[in-house]
């Protein structure tokens, strides 16, 4: 989806910067951070549609970051990037609620395809959430004040 907001998290600055440009060339709004802690801060400050998260990072690794993201309770989808597609990391990531994972190096088109898939899932979740909130407003108009709290 053109204009989707992507948070790219990878300790490899070259990859991060160049991938940011590639995604920006495809009209995505990309923010790049280089570690898990920065990613959590960014997500606390701003909403992102899709988080592209590297699994192997010094300090807070991809799995730990994913757990924190889930604890934030925000509506976003996470794509994992791994060095090689090992079953343990894949199972762990999917179990924790990641949308999918990709092995590095990955084709830009493949990544875009996954981002689109993740965005659709996130959009569905957002719509569902909105419907539930609207339903509450219809049922109880005073609830409108709580919508954006």
């Amino acid at each position: 989806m053109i204009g989707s907001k992507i948070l790219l998290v990878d300790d490899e600055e070259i990859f991060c910067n160049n991938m940011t440009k590639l995604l920006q060339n495809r009209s995505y709004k990309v923010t790049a951070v280089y570690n898990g802690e920065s990613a959590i801060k960014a997500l606390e400050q701003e909403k992102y549609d899709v988080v592209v998260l590297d699994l192997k990072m010094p300090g807070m690794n991809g799995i730990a970051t994913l757990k924190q993201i889930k604890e934030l309770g925000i509506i976003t989808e996470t794509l994992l990037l791994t060095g090689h597609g090992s079953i343990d990391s894949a199972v762990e990531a999917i179990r924790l609620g990641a949308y999918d994972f990709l092995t590095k190096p990955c084709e830009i088109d493949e990544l875009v395809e996954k981002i689109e898939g993740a965005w659709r899932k996130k959009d569905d979740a957002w719509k569902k959430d909105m419907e539930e909130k609207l339903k509450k407003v219809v049922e109880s108009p005073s609830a409108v004040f709580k919508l954006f709290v």
Partner: protein
Amino acid sequence: MPDRSFTISATRDFPYYRKVWKKVVAILIASAFLPLAIIGGGMYVYLARTIKHKTMEALQAEAVSHKRDIDSFLTERIMDLKLISENNGLSKMMSPGAIEQVLSSLQRELPCFQDLGVIGADGEHLAYTGPYDLKAKNYRNTVWFKAVMDDGVSVSDVFTGFRNVPHFIIAVKRNEGKTLWILRATVMSSLFDNIVTQLAGNTKADAYLINSKGDFQTNARKGGELMMKSQVLPPGRFKGVQVEEKGTTLTLTTWLETVSWLSVVSIDTRDLFEDSRRVRNMGLFVILLGGFVIILSILFTTDSLVSMLEEKRKNNRRLDLRLRRAAFLASLMKLSKGVFSDLTDILSNIHVTGTLMKEQIGLADVCETDLMAEQIFSEAIRGRNLIDSFIRFAGPEDPVIMAVDIHMMLDHIIVFLRTALIEKNIGVITDFQAGFPTVRSDGNALCQVLLTLLVNAASAVSANGSIFVSTSMKENGVMILISDDGPGLGKADMEYLFEPQYSTDRGDSGFGLSISRDIMERIGGRISVRNGEEHGAVFEVQVPGGFVWEYPDAKGVIPN
């Protein structure tokens, strides 16, 4: 393989368990022989004592019996003379021919009587019959005469006397009113000897008589002649039987009642206890034979056990070396995984940079830079594949998930098998469904399964045969059918085809299909076989659309 040939245990090579071998052999031998020695020895001592005791009792009884027999013999002879003297009287005995008749009747009864004489109180012969001319002889000063005059009865010691031949006298005194006379008979020692010897029941025993001075009154079998001094010193009179054991000779002595003679029975204990010695020797032989068998069994058993231990130790050592090697490789791979992970990042950086470069270069340079960018991509991909292959080699249990184009994979395998197919002029007929999707699966493992099935099919079909490969989409994945026009499978083949080490003439090594089944189960698929409607075998491979993983606490599908 352990050395099964039997060699002497002490010389066999047990480099690590020699001490154990010695200890086990010592303990087993001790535990086998100690009870044997205690029980066997105890039984032998008990039996030997019992046998000796019983034998001694029997011997004593025999000695008493021997003495009684001799006493009876002498008593009877005395009674004979008493009866003759009482029945006949002096006048009758002196009548012509009477004494000869009496001697004759006595000799008929017992030939040991040599002569018979009637002697007056002055010691002169009143009548005599016998082989010697003894009528003029006077016995007034002889010991036996004095004894008979004193006691009424006398049995003399053996002496040679006037006749110079060993003999002894039995004499009885008779009073007829105021007339006193003596009836005297001579017993020949040679004949009496036979009687005494015959009375001794034990043929191995030496039985003889000695007088109170220790002179032989009968011949002894072993170095004892009549009237010579014997080695036995007669003790004072005693009742019963006296037993004396000296060296290997056992001597039983007892005094006669009728005469002051000592009855001696001597026997060699070696002869006496020959039976018990034989039993002892037989027992010893049995123990030695049994011991030999026990020792052989112990050596053989211990050898076998220690050989097994040695073999086990060698195997353990080999296993240990392998484990060490495996541990080394594992640690190396752990290290390598980190290195490869970094390498992957580097390749990823190159790849993404190449992609960016390709997009940002101006149109003028497009041809040359495109080429360079393609080279960067291809090298990056090649590097990644290389790392994937290496990691797969290092940890074959970890599947590498990738998007698999099954049609392309089958095409590659068929090309790979081209040489083998051309050799037998085998045709491969493919029927691939159009619009076939890629599946996310462990591509390398799937490739191994399909390669195994196609290689087996190529082996199964005869020259000019055909292999059929078709694909179709199913609800939750895809199905690949690989069939051939070979001879098909028998009932047993169908049952055991996927078991390890079960091989058929289809060319399977015995592991290929077993491994294939495991792979398919691991990636969530299935493999099955059936015979074709007309001929040949049909293998069905079902591959799930998304990778299915099986974990103890998780089950799911990675979306395609």
